[in-house]
């Protein structure tokens, strides 16, 4: 690795370019370009899917009606809504310069961002689940991936956040699920509106210092520009958008429950089983809000809801066992939730 940290500010870019630009950088770094810190702000709002996520998670009709493009990135995480109120950053280094253990690499790549937040007056911490937070609110979303031999971590400075739209773009058939998700999104995702120029400068300083590199403004190389053109084409194709879980293929996993992760440890889900229906929010392992339906409860669902509210997810089956057949059906619906996998 050279001792240079190339810093590129792509400014405002189209939704497509706000993805393909930094992917081109990752291919460039893989091929020998300097480690690179880049910034980009989408010129228009759009929706972006993580590498493995399913297009069916998005309300495509809503996106079409509201002219929100849908793109797929090569790094992980769930579907996200992006707009001009978010400044995105990407740090990319050769894989050989990072620990082989993913959690160590991720921590090493996120810690300088925390330093930068501090430098601009935001008391951020990197928690045990590798989320950048202030208190219990996430202030920076991130995703990571290895693209050939370049490891990239993306994150954002959230200057403003449209919680309602970020929830609305998700395909949620149950209105209660949408309402519960929006409430948690408002509670656990926060904006930190600081001067973006100061943040960019602090980031360049923090990453240079953390990796012993000398920050210098840069731009894409000729090879990266060629890669960018190829990526524009790839990312615009239906095949790329369809992703690794194309409908109809044998390897498609039927969703076991509709789950939305708001931040690490905070999630909602909706599931049905044999006519029983569950919608719940889970905050650090405990059921916080729950809405239940089973035809045989005959109006006594409130009693069951009270019984499971506040208990740990692992105790739900035991508690519901006391409510006969409806309890067993509801417990089966609960069992489809798998928070570790979202």
């Amino acid at each position, binding site marked *: 690795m050279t001792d240079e940290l190339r810093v590129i500010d792509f400014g405002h870019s189209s939704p497509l370019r706000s993805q393909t630009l930094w992917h081109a950088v990752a291919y460039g770094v893989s091929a020998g370009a300097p480690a690179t810190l880049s910034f980009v702000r989408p010129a228009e709002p759009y929706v972006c899917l993580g*590498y493995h996520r399913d297009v069916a998670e998005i309300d495509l009709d809503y996106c079409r009606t509201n002219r929100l493009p849908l793109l797929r990135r090569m790094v*992980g995480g769930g579907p996200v809504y992006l707009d001009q109120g978010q400044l995105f950053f990407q740090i990319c280094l050769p894989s050989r310069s990072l620990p082989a253990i*993913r*959690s160590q690499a991720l921590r090493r790549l996120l810690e300088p961002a925390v330093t930068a937040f501090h430098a601009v007056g935001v008391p951020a911490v990197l928690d045990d689940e590798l989320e950048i937070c202030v208190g219990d609110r996430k202030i920076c979303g991130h995703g990571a991936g290895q693209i050939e031999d370049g490891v990239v971590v993306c994150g954002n400075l959230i200057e403003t956040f449209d919680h309602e739209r970020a929830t609305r773009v998700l395909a949620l058939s149950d209105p209660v699920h949408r309402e519960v998700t929006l409430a948690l999104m408002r509670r656990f995702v926060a904006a930190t509106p600081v001067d973006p120029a100061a943040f960019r400068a602090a980031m360049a300083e923090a990453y240079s210092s953390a990796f012993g590199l000398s920050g210098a403004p840069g731009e894409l190389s000729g090879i990266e520009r060629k890669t960018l053109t190829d990526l524009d084409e790839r990312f615009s194709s239906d095949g790329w958008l369809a992703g690794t879980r194309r409908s109809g293929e*044998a390897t498609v*996993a039927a969703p076991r429950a509709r789950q939305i992760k708001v931040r690490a440890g905070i999630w909602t889900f909706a599931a049905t089983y044999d006519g029983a229906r569950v919608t719940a929010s889970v905050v650090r392992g405990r059921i916080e809000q729950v809405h239940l339906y089973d035809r045989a409860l005959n109006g006594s669902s409130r009693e069951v809801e009270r019984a499971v509210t506040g208990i740990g997810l692992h105790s739900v089956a035991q508690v519901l066992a006391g409510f006969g057949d409806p309890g067993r059906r509801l417990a089966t619906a609960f069992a489809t939730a798998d928070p570790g996998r979202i």
Partner: protein
Amino acid sequence: MEGSALVQVAGFPVALDRSYHAESHMWVFRTGLAHVRIGMDSLGLETSGTLAQLSFAPVGSELTAGRPFGQLEAAKFVGPLISPVTGTLLAVNDDVVTDASLAERDPYEAGWLIDASLDDPFDELQGLLADPAAVSAWFADKIAEYRLQGVISE
């Protein structure tokens, strides 16, 4: 793969009837003269974090030792699954694509990842760790190293 000679090393299971690619934590089990089954060992899985998704190159793809044959996503990090052999991808375990946790629950049997044919059935596995005593020692060393680094718990 009946009775896979599974032993516990410092709390982590390892099967001693197969070969290991130390860097990638992939195991290789010979199912025929030129055919192998490939999976990830329990330590590789543990240090990856909770698996969210696995995806693989299409059946029929060429495999190159040291290059990716698929992707693993854990903790919002998508990273390559590195092939320990050179050959051809013959089959993918659809069960782990459907439910990635199967690889964590049963890494040496039901949680296998791919089947492959070998370009060179005689020399292809020579660079891998195969001797049971060497495998056990390597596993114990890696566990100690990861515990020292705080990557895995005591």
